């Protein structure tokens, strides 16, 4: 690249990075600025009066802590279930050829074309009947429907990437099918599965619609924020938004190595 082209190129890269990062910085200012910060005019790009006090106030508001706990319960449920159900399915898809395999694959791919969260509407009735309505666990169940197809596809290709011969070698040396899986296959697939699990966590942590429809008192953080949005002051909203974003930064950082492998293979 020539000098000028190079400059233009890197300016573009920097601008796009700023496009992502600056808004996060700004909501951070909003979150730490508190009530006074919100009304300051004109605003400055530097944290003049930022303090932890604003966030502490937010966390002290009744309902915020329980909502966070609910969010975490729902996300952990979603994570455990989508891997617990999806990984075995992925293993079956990768290692066996059997009738109905393609039908199952199709069902999994089909879920992409449906607005899954919106299909939670009729679940309210069923959930009320079996006592899952208004529980974080129930919300986690619905979120699993979002994450499970992805987990199944990703683990299928993870297992496919591990040569069958490795497992067969373990059998030859006297391992049972389960032992061979646990001692040979699982350690190799684990990092990728962990990444898929984190992704399932994020999907649940961020979901709004189903969570709002399926709960009234035991709301997740997103659902809680959505309901109180209209009547809460701006700095309160910004603190909530910022707290929603914070874990995402860490999660995406944790899975960054697997992100592209996951999506590359989940495409096929």
């Amino acid at each position, binding site marked *: 690249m020539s000098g000028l082209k190079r400059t233009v190129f890197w300016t573009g890269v920097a601008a796009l990075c700023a496009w992502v990062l600056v808004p996060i910085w700004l909501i951070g200012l909003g979150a730490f600025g508190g009530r006074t910060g919100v009304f300051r005019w004109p605003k400055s790009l530097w944290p003049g009066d930022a303090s932890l006090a604003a966030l502490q106030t937010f966390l002290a508001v009744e309902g915020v802590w329980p909502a966070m706990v609910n969010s975490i319960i729902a996300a952990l449920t979603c994570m455990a279930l989508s891997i617990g159900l999806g990984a075995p399915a992925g293993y079956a898809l990768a290692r*066996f050829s059997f009738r109905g395999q393609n039908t199952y694959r199709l069902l999994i791919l089909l879920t*992409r074309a449906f607005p899954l969260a919106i*299909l939670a509407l009729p679940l309210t009735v069923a959930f009320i009947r079996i006592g899952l309505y208004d529980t974080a666990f129930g919300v986690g169940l619905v979120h699993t429907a979002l994450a499970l197809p992805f987990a199944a596809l990703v683990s299928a290709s993870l297992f496919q990437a591990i040569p069958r011969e490795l497992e067969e070698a373990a059998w030859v040396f006297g391992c049972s099918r389960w032992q061979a899986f646990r001692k040979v296959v699982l350690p190799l697939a684990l990092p990728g599965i962990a990444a898929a699990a984190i992704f399932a966590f994020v999907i649940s942590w961020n979901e709004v619609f189903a969570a709002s429809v399926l709960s009234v008192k035991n709301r997740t953080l997103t659902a809680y*924020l959505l309901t109180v949005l209209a009547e809460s002051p701006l700095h309160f*909203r910004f603190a909530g938004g910022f707290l929603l974003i914070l874990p995402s930064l860490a999660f995406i950082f944790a899975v960054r190595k697997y992100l*592209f492998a996951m999506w590359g293979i989940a495409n096929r």
Partner: protein
Amino acid sequence: MKRTQSRALPYLLLAPSLVFLTAIFLLPLVQTIALSFSESGVASLGNYRRMVSDLNFGLALRNTFLLVLVVVPIQLALALGMSVMIEKIGRGRDLVLWVWTIPLGVSDLAAGLVWLAILQDRGYLNSALYGLGLIEGPTAWLTYETPGTLFLGVVLAEIWRATAIVLVILVAGLQLIPKEYREAAEVFGARPWTIFRRITLPLLKPSIQTALILRTVLAFEVFAVVYAIGGTNFPVLVGEAYTWQNANQNTGVAAAYAMLIVVISLAATAIYLRVLRVPAEQQP
């Protein structure tokens, strides 16, 4: 004994997920259809009639479509550009990729709040405009009276939040294309733009298709972003479903909205599958 066991094994492994998806995906789908076509237990089109005759229906339909039609093409173009840039970055590629994919983990609600912080009356945009002498003081952009700028705000937030997923799918797809194809084209005299158009783009078609399907289906579900930025000033389809369900306590009409969204999503998917089809023989 061993044989029957191993023949049953794949089905045993699939069964839990299948049962789960039946309970949480297929059954609710059927129930939604049933709910939308019945009023107090009697089959009727009443819910749909009420949905269509609602004041907000036309507006919500128009807004949702407008949003999808504006946002999705911009995201595709932007993500294509970014993925080509990523290919050219040597050192620092991982860092740039991480930064560019951060919004992938940001919820739509949070994204809406982020842009609210920027676009509100006393927000950073207005501060900047004031600094430049373009406005006199705090100005409202996100109200019922300013539908244009409200729409623009939602578009910005959606592009900010959801371009990352398209980017990830495209970068993953690019990594699957051996670099020799592009090199061969270059050896035979193709210019960078020609290579992009004649080699990269056609080979990337499967990824583009996946990205567009995912993104479009999700874009038709847009709700929390809009709600965070504009409240109820900018009705969209899922927002209406939410209102009918929670505020009006009328699951029937909400289900009718859900069915409408299902039908639109399926139609969009079918169109993409058809238009961006890659015949099996042309796949690498």
